[in-house]
C-alpha cells in the first residue's frame, strides 16, 4: 500500500543526489580517543538500494551506523572522514539540525524494539506523537496517518493495534511498529541495526519481505547491519564486509557469494548457514579477531589468513578495484582463486 504523500520535509531541503549516503574515510575513536575502532571506512548507498554491513562483533559495523545517525556512545567520536546524506554534510551539524535530519532524512530500527518504546503508552499514540512533532500534523490527522502507516507495515487490524501497549504485542509486531515509526516521516534512508536478530526465523523472514516491499513501494534505501551473512545475502543488493574496523570487501551480493575475493569473506561464507540441511562438517575460522583498536602492521586479517605472504605484514593494504563496484582489501585479490559457494 502506498501512503498518501504530503511534503514530509517541512523546512529541511536535502540536496538531491543519486547517492543517498556516502561515507568517506571514516575514523571513529573509542575510549575517549585511546583506540581507533573504525579505520578508514568508505561506503555508498544509492537511492532504492539495500546495502548490508556484515562482520563479527567488534568489527565496527554498528559504530559506523551510529556515526551516520549522529548517536555515537559516550567516549566515541568521529576523528576523521566525512558522512553525507544526499549531499548534506552530517559531520558539521548542530544539535538542532540533527533533530530535523532524524526522521525526515534518516530513520532507524534497532535490535530490541521493546526498549525503544514507552511501555505504558499505546503504540499508536507514540507514532502519532512523532507525526505531530516532526510533521506538525493536527491530532486527528496524525491518528489517521498512524493507522495508515500501521497498515502499510503489514499489521493486521491497525485500528486495534493503535490502542495497544507494547506488552500486548509480540516481538515481530513491535518491530513492525518500530519500522512504521522509522518510516513515518518518509526518510531517505532507513538504518536497520540487527533489526531481525532477536526475532524468530519465521518472523525474520516476514520482516525481510516487508523491507523489500517498502523498497519496491516507496524507493526506500536501507542500510542493513547484521552479523549473519545468510540474512544479508537474502535481503541486500550489495554487501560490505567488515573486519576489525576496516571494510575488507564490498560488492554486489551475487559477486560476493559466488566470487569472493578476500579470504575473510570466503571464510565467512564457509561458516555461514548454507542451508542445505544435510549433515556436514561444521567449519570454523582459526584464531581470534584482533581486539578493538589493535594496531597491526599490514593486513589486519593476515594472522588468520591461509594465503598470507610476507608482503601482507608490511605497509598499508589499500582496496583493489575488481570491476563493477566491487573491491577487496587484499594484496592477492587478483592472484587468489577463491571458490565461492556455487563454485564449491
Amino acid at each position, binding site marked *: 500500500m*502506498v501512503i498518501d*504523500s504530503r511534503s514530509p520535509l517541512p523546512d529541511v531541503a536535502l540536496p538531491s543526489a543519486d547517492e543517498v549516503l556516502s561515507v568517506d574515510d571514516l575514523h571513529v575513536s573509542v575510549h575517549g580517543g585511546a583506540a581507533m575502532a573504525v579505520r578508514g571506512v568508505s561506503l555508498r548507498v544509492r*537511492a*532504492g538500494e*539495500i546495502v548490508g554491513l556484515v562482520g*563479527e*562483533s567488534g568489527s565496527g559495523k554498528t559504530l559506523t551506523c551510529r556515526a551516520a545517525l549522529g548517536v555515537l556512545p559516550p567516549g566515541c567520536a568521529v576523528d576523521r572522514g566525512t558522512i553525507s546524506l544526499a549531499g548534506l554534510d552530517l559531520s558539521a551539524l548542530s544539535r538542532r539540525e540533527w533533530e530535523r535530519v532524524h526522521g525526515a532524512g534518516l530513520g532507524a530500527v534497532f535490535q530490541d524494539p521493546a526498549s525503544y518504546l514507552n511501555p505504558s503508552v499505546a503504540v499508536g499514540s507514540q507514532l502519532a506523537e512523532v507525526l505531530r512533532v516532526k510533521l506538525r500534523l493536527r491530532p486527528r490527522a496524525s491518528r489517521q496517518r498512524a493507522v495508515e502507516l500501521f497498515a502499510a507495515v503489514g499489521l493486521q487490524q491497525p485500528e486495534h493495534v493503535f490502542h495497544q501497549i507494547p506488552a500486548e504485542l*509480540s*516481538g515481530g509486531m513491535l518491530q513492525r511498529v518500530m519500522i512504521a515509526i522509522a518510516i513515518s516521516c518518509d526518510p531517505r534512508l532507513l538504518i536497520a541495526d540487527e533489526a531481525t536478530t532477536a526475532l*524468530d*526465523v*519465521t*518472523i*525474520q*523472514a*516476514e520482516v*525481510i*519481505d516487508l523491507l*523489500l*516491499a517498502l*523498497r*519496491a*513501494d*516507496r*524507493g526506500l534505501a536501507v542500510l542493513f547491519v547484521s*552479523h*549473519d*551473512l*545468510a*540474512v544479508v*545475502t*537474502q*535481503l*541486500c*543488493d*550489495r554487501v560490505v564486509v567488515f573486519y576489525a574496523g576496516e571494510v575488507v570487501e564490498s560488492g*554486489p*551480493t*551475487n559477486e560476493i*557469494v559466488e566470487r569472493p575475493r578476500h579470504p575473510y569473506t570466503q*571464510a*565467512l*561464507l564457509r*561458516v*555461514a*548457514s*548454507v*542451508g*542445505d*540441511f*544435510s*549433515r*556436514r*562438517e*561444521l*567449519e*570454523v*575460522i582459526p584464531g*581470534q579477531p584482533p581486539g578493538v583498536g589493535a594496531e597491526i602492521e599490514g593486513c589486519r586479517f593476515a594472522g588468520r589468513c591461509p594465503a598470507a605472504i610476507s608482503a601482507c605484514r608490511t605497509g598499508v593494504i589499500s582496496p583493489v578495484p575488481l570491476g563493477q563496484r566491487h573491491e577487496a582489501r587484499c594484496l592477492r585479490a587478483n592472484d587468489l582463486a577463491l571458490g565461492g*559457494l556455487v563454485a564449491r
Partner: protein
Amino acid sequence: MTASPAASPAASPAASQAPRLAVESVDVILGHGWRATKILSGVDLTVWPGQIVGLVGETGSGKTTLARAIVGLVDPARGRIEIDGRTVSTLRRGARRAERRRGTVQLIFQDPLRSLDPDLTVADIVAEGLRIRGGIDRDTIGELVLGALANVGLDASALKRTPGQISGGQRQRVAIARALATQPRLLICDEPVSALDASTRNYVLRLLDDLRGSLGLSIVVISHDLSSLAGIADRIAVLYRGRIVEDGPASQVFTAPRHPYTALLMACAPSVRHDRPFAPYQLRRSGADVVAPVAGEVPAAGGACVFAPRCPFAAAACAAQPALETAGRWWSVACHRHQEWPALARERERACPSPAWPAASAGEPARRR
C-alpha cells in the same frame, strides 16, 4: 515417499538399551486459577544414550519449559519424566535436591555472560558444582576442573580469569565445562549458540558433537535455528504451542518435512543458497487464502489443531487436534493432511514481490518522489 533410513547409528538405538531420557505425555500448567496456562500438552520425547536431539520451535512454544521440567525446576501436571529408567518427576523435595546435586542432568543457557557469576574465576565456576555435591577433596576437584576445561579446549591459563576477561566463545565453553565437571549423563543446552558469531557457533556445536562421541553424553539442543542443528542433531523434535508436531531422524525430517510448520521453519531459515523444497510464501497463510473456519485463536485442549490458525492447508478435519502418527521408522507427525499438503504447497503462487537477489541488478525500483 519415505527416504532411505540412512541415519547415523545413534539415530536408531539398539533394542537392548534403555533410553537416557523418557518424557511421557507430559502436561505443564503454569500459574493458578484464572491465570493458569497450559504450556505443554501431551509431550513425548525420548533421548537414547549418545544421541543428540534438536528441539526446535518459536518463542513461546514451550522449549524452555520442557527443559525446566526435565531438570526438575517445574513440576508436570500430568505424565512422567524418567532419566535412566528412574522416574524423577514425582520425587519429593529432598530426593529432588539430592538428584540435582548429583549432577546427572546439566543445563547450559543462551547467554554465558548472564549465566556465569561475574565475580568468580573460571576455576571457581567450574568447581562449584563439585563443591556443592561434597565428599570430594580439593586435589581431586582441581583435577576434575582441569579435565573438564581440557574437554572444551581450554587450558590452565584460563583458570584465574573472570567471565568478563575472556571472549564470548570462551565463556560458552566455560559454561559447558561447568556442566561437564559433575560428569553428567544428559546435557540440556537452551539456545547454546544463538548469542555467538558464526565461526564461534560452529566451534561450540562441533565441541558438543565431539563430547557426545568421547564421553557418550546424551544431548538435547534447544534452538530456533534449524540450519545450525542440521550439522549435529541425530533427531529433530519440533514444538509448536506446547505440542510436538513432528519428531524424526534429522536427515529425513530435513529432506522431506511432513508437517507444514517444520517446512515453514526450514523455508524461513536464512541461507546463502536458494535451493529449498519450498519458499516461505508457499507455506504462509496470506490474505487471499480461503480456508475452512477454525474456531478460536488459542484452541482449548481437544480443540482444533494448534497450527491450524496459521496453516494455509487447514481443512474441516483440522478442527480436531491430530494425534502423533507414525510417518516412518522413528518418525512421527501430528498433521491430518501430511500426505496432501506438499502437493498443495507446490501449487501456491507468490503473493509478494520477489526477493532482491539474484535479480538485484534488474533496474532501479520506482521512486515515489
